[in-house]
């Protein structure tokens, strides 16, 4: 048995550790797990706060599952009307659905279950938010590039499934708010040309609202979607494990190695973070009330509460519905309602599609082949960062639009102004955000260049004998200089020759030109990194500076640095 774990020569004095060792031996002789342990013990796990975002999503999902299982023990997914006769006096003798009555029972009569309901709800919010921020981290640092494109797609799918899972759960308690949400979903389905009415009929089992939807949502929510989430989640984790994590460039960190904590330390930190995420979610559930359905009341399709809004992760779609101008056309006697179709169906589809194909498009434009394991600093990819920020601005504006009535109330401005302001902003702000972000990135690149050439500012002002003031700069360490300069600077692609050597026009000329133009947009604007000569020259100056600061005023010196 070569795989047997060897007992330490000196058995531990701790009884528990000795026993644990024996258990490990027992297991190991049957499944030879020591290979797995040995294999993992040599692995490195890069350290950066942003690498934990995915973990937060994973841990909050565990919390969603745990609390969700508890809730299924009491929830009755049925729309059969019953007369409520529970502990909550204000709704007693009101006719409600069984789903709503059991939600009230969970909240009021099963001890500790209100906490579980709120844990379930808050954990969902944290889950989706963590996934979204994780996605942004991956986007802005370029972690989606080869070989991680497939994992980018899987992650995107998980985000969509998470949102669908959240929304199907939102519809379950059959309260006024969840019913209103379903009604808007029905409106969105009806807007789909040709199949819209069939789809609505299919999902609601005939006319809206029918008495099927809660039990159907329940099957989706507790069975189908969790299953659909778990499978790609495992694939996501396996791929991360196989491809190993990316890391930030720097001294000793290359495209061919991984530098980071050891396995045991990493597992300890991940375990600690898991407990912290659990703790924070439970504290949120304890202190922040969420979805008090007894205040909304049971669903009645003839009623709606003022200020009805969906959960935050659906708010961008609701905002799009509110901001879309009224636009309907007549297609051979049929109605095509763009004012619903575009925001409810086309927009989410287009966003997911754009995110899905982005890695491939970027690779075509940049033209860099091969595996990329070193992350980009966002400033070094100004166009990508700009696009990302433009998208975030677009999303946030729609999201704000989802609460235009609340904004109008809070700021005491006419709601129509808020809506019109947002309608204009949604068109104008993203390009503006792109341009500003790109400028900021270039500014930061220039700052890096300045740092490499002249060192970092010390805050020490020196008065020269001539009366001039200047600030002392200390040169960066070699490690820091390397970290700031080691990234790649791919050159923009050139369009291919218009004719080949025999004078025959090259095929796909237009595509080649478009690609070259995009490539120039992506990579053309760049602050040159200093060359070795420049650094040597600058350092020579600064040596000079420190012994005898120059006699020029600081403003002039700064200008001369810029060249």
């Amino acid at each position: 048995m070569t795989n047997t774990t060897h007992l330490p020569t000196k058995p531990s004095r701790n009884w528990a550790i000795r026993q644990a060792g024996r258990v490990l031996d027992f297991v190991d002789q049957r499944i030879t797990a020591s290979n797995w342990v040995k294999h993992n013990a040599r692995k490195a796990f890069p350290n950066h706060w942003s690498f934990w975002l995915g973990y937060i999503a994973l841990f909050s999902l565990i919390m969603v599952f745990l609390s969700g299982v508890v809730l299924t023990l009491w929830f009755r997914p049925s729309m059969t009307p019953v007369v409520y006769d529970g502990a909550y006096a204000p709704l007693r003798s009101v006719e409600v659905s069984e789903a709503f009555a059991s939600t009230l029972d969970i909240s009021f009569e099963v001890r500790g279950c209100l906490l579980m309901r709120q844990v379930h709800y808050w954990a969902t919010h944290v889950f989706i938010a963590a996934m979204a921020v994780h996605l942004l981290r991956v986007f802005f640092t370029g972690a989606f590039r080869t070989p991680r494109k497939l994992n980018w797609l899987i992650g995107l799918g998980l985000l969509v499934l998470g949102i669908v899972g959240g929304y199907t759960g939102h519809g379950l308690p059959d309260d006024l708010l969840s019913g209103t949400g379903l009604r808007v979903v029905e409106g969105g389905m009806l807007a789909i040309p040709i199949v819209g009415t069939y789809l609505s009929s299919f999902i609601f089992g005939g006319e809206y609202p029918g008495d099927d939807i809660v039990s159907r949502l329940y099957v989706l929510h507790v069975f189908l979607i969790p299953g659909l989430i778990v499978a790609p989640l495992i694939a996501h984790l396996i791929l991360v494990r196989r491809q190993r994590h990316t890391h930030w460039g720097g001294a000793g960190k290359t495209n061919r190695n991984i530098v980071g904590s050891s396995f045991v330390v990493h597992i300890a930190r991940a375990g600690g973070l898991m407990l912290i995420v659990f703790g924070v979610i439970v504290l949120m559930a304890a202190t922040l009330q969420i979805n008090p359905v007894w205040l909304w009341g049971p669903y009645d399709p003839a009623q709606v509460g003022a200020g009805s809004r969906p959960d935050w992760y659906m708010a961008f779609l609701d905002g799009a519905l509110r901001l879309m101008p009224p636009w309907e056309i007549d297609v051979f006697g049929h109605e095509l309602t763009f004012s619903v179709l575009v925001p409810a169906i086309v927009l989410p589809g287009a966003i997911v599609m754009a995110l899905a194909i982005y890695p491939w498009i970027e690779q075509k434009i940049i033209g860099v082949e091969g595996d990329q394991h070193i992350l980009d600093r966002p400033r070094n990819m100004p166009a990508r960062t700009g696009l990302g920020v433009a998208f975030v601005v677009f999303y946030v504006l729609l999201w704000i639009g989802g609460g235009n009535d609340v904004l109008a109330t809070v700021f005491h401005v006419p709601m129509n102004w808020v809506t019109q302001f947002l309608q204009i902003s949604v068109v104008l702000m993203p390009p503006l955000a792109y341009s500003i972000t790109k400028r900021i990135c270039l500014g930061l690149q220039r700052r890096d260049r300045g740092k490499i050439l002249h060192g970092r500012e010390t805050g020490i002002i020196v008065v020269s004998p001539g009366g001039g003031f200047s600030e002392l700069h200390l040169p960066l360490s070699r490690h820091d200089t390397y970290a700031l300069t080691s990234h790649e600077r791919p050159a923009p692609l050139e369009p291919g020759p218009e004719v080949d050597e025999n004078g025959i026009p090259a095929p796909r000329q237009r595509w080649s030109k478009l690609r070259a133009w995009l490539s120039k947009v992506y990579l053309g604007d760049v602050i040159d990194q200093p060359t070795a000569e420049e650094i040597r020259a600058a350092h020579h100056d600064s040596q000079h500076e420190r012994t005898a600061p120059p006699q020029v005023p600081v403003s002039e010196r700064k200008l001369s640095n810029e060249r």
Partner: protein
Amino acid sequence: MTDHSSPRWRLGPLTTQRADAGPRFTDVESGARRRARRHVAGLFAVATVLVITSVVFYFGVSDEAGRDINVGDLQISNLVLGLTLGLALLLAGVGVVHWSRALLTSTEVVEHRSSDDGGGSTREASGGAAKSSLLGRRRLIRAFLRGTLALLPLPTVVALRGLDPTPDEKHEHTAWAEGVRLLTDIGYRPIRASDLQVGAMVNVMPASLLDLPAEGPARLNERAKSPVVLVRMRPDELAPDEGRENWHVDGIIAYSKICTHAGCPVSLYEHTTHHLLCPCHQATFDLADNGAVVFGPATRTLPQLPLAVDDDGFLMAQSDFTEAVGPSYWEREA
């Protein structure tokens, strides 16, 4: 991969050596190490106490709160349970992280990325395997196999037909018809014209709703389609379109409550402007002007229900709506 041959940004071999973060305070100072150990142990101890408190509280509080629950009490119980459990988890987590940061090793490991390239591409390998298995030989067999596989899901899809997804023409009609009385939404009482002041607004349902079976979803479906907003304004404030002049009773008018945008019940009425606002997406309709859209994303006017008074003096409908209510859909008459 880093291309060191490009001269544009080449800096020369500055360094590829890793920067060492240096020892931590707890590595050199035995006092600090002891303190850190005490802190970690303390955090775990407090967490344990909190978990036990949580359980004790769960059983300790009387179950005999009576039939009426006091929401305030419930929230305090929720708060205590959640705070104890949440803090226990949080402190335990902080303890583990502190332990790992202060006491576990801080040295970084370097691992070399192994390339998964097993020589030759997977495509070649699988192509070779397919070839050697003679899979590629029989075109006819493959064609039939493809056909079978393509048709396999069909029986399942056909079985879904049992759900009967045909929308029929239910969208186009509501429970309103000639002579159907207007009932108040709450209490289902008939309404006389004299019951309404100028400026008043009442939510209304058709009396025929009560003829529908109480079992099953029929009534609920009708409540989703037939609700009506009844409003009274001065007759001279109305500007009825041609053909709608006699649809009101002394300035009492009725409109479908279902928004023509996404189907929410339009319910915020401002009687000075005669505007009816949908709280979902703020589509705004002018009831004095035949339900015309004055703001927001709705594309069509709100359908109007023609009103009359029956022999007993109660308000009734002259007919069903003259168009389908609710959001636009493909088959709707444009």
